[in-house]
């Protein structure tokens, strides 16, 4: 399976501890080498003034042209993302492609006393989830699998950061990790 690179492409700085935690969890989930890298800049032309949000598809396009020649690339951002049809998305990925993006913008909602720890847990789950799509996985209906659809933060909290056995098996099927644009 392809190795993974993680880039922080947000506006405000991200705590190095958080990036390290995400790196470790991704390595455990996919069993591949994961490295935190420095992006060549920040995505441009992704902001939609009418929506006041960033178009996730353009984020993916920017990541794709800036990505290293090999492996999967996950961009993490603090910008609120959307696709034209929906009010917001937590992230987006090329299904079976090379790049994925996940946003922290809505992961601060409804934080209880667990606060920061819960926020990082959510980010880990979203990172594993979006990269799952990049490895060709679709949404899973097995309860608590990290690949279940999360339409709100409550859904994110309910699932585990792990792939269910079926998704894990699917990762090993030939043709899952292919380069394709949706």
């Amino acid at each position, binding site marked *: 399976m392809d190795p993974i690179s993680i880039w922080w492409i947000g506006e405000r700085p991200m705590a190095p501890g958080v990036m390290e935690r995400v790196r470790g969890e991704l390595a455990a989930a996919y069993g591949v080498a994961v490295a935190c890298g420095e992006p060549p800049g920040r995505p441009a032309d992704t902001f939609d003034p009418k929506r006041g949000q960033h178009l996730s*598809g353009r984020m993916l396009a920017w990541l794709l042209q800036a990505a290293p020649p090999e492996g999967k690339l996950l961009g993490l951002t603090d910008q609120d993302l959307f696709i*034209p*049809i*929906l*009010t917001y998305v937590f992230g987006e990925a090329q299904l079976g492609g090379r790049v994925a993006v996940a946003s922290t913008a809505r992961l601060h909602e409804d934080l209880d006393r667990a606060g920061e720890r819960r926020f990082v847990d959510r980010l880990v789950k979203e990172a594993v989830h979006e990269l799952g799509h990049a490895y060709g996985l*679709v949404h899973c209906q097995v309860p608590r699998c990290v690949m279940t659809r999360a*339409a*709100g933060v409550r859904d994110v909290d309910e699932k585990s950061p792990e792939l269910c056995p079926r998704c894990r098996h699917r990762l090993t099927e030939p043709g899952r990790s292919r380069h394709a644009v949706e």
Partner: protein
Amino acid sequence: MPSNERVRILVVDDEEIVRESLAGWLAKDGYAVEQADRGAAALARLAAQRFSILISDLKMPEMDGLALQAEARKLQPDLAVVIMTAFATVDTAVTAMKQGAFDYLVKPFDPEELSMMMQKIVAQQELVRENAVLRKALKKEHQLHDLTSKAPAMQAVFELARTAARSSSTILILGESGAGKEVLARAIHAESPRAAGPFVEVSCAALTETLLESELFGHEKGSFTGATARRKGKFEAAHQGTLFLDEVGDIGPKLQLDLLRVLEERRFHRIGGNETVEVDVRIVAATNKDLQRAVASGSFREDLFYRLNVIPIRLPPLRDRREDVPLLVEVFLERLSAELGRPIEGISAEAMNALAVHPWPGNVRELRNVLERGAVVARGPIIELLDLGLEGPSPSGAAPRGEPPTSPDASLDEVERRHIAAVLAHTGFNVSQSARVLGVDRVTLYNKMRKYGMKRDGEDEPSHPTPGR
């Protein structure tokens, strides 16, 4: 939990970015998603393959979402339609829902809302499918081939028919016209070891005695004027199969004797021939006559009666098994829907009540005919009471409104006048509805009303309708 992979969704929007992002979102849920950029392209896809869900934008050039919905449902009536609109207007939502849309979405929509709506549609369609399977299984329990009944008397008939079918004994089916004697005969044949052989039917009442004799036994060339070639009869045609002698109570004395001989010896001569023809035929006879009374009065041979009456099966009239009416309605509407090529979803409660109390002198055949008429004239997918054109007592038991029936010596104009008056009275003088029932357009009906000087109490003569009013 059902797999989403089997759920095929068609996304229709003229904006590529909207289409792509929605299709991408749904694909990640595992749905099989296809896209179309306009109504015509969507209809082409719907004509080519089945979809579970159609998600269409409301405002599109050429054909809008509502027009697409109407056309799409003609192609796939069980399609769940979701209309997307950029502006939340109550009117649009109401129109879409009235025309059968499952729901509508205001763009941009909340991911939670979209996700839950798709799950709801899939769950509902799964339920409908399960329900259909269960109903099919239940119906099968109540069926003997094309006969359907849950009435205990008919269940006994089915059991006897199944048992009798296994033997080669002669069966005599007794029952009123339209009760399903021929359908039962065919079912017996289909259940029998002779099912792969021919099922040959002869209507004994339809032919003269001479013609019937030739029809049954065949003839040799030159055996009578017009016999230009040898012709095999129905007995030979039914070799190794079943010969159904309908209205056997109507055959004359000579044929009764000939038939008796064949039943006893299983061989005969063609008319004008010397060759003995042996046949292996199972006889199923039927009559609506009281054969025992005919034997008593001497018009039917007693020995033939006993030859035919080996296994008698009596089909009860529909009025004695009224509990079957709703079941039969369902079966017939399903068949009529397929035959007429238009979706008929059911009949109104008022219409069903009327069918439940109708005396059904013509039995199941009459019920089918009434429903066929209803299916043809119904404007929508539901057959209403007036569509059935039922005559006789109203469901409440009150006498029908309108004028009394005409006498046999009435002129055609008089019959027409009275019939129009009766229909107008029945519809409460609703001209559009009456025209529909009578099978004419409103202008024709207005002309006839003027011709016969018909008007509602306190009204002048009817005027022609003005277009646009």
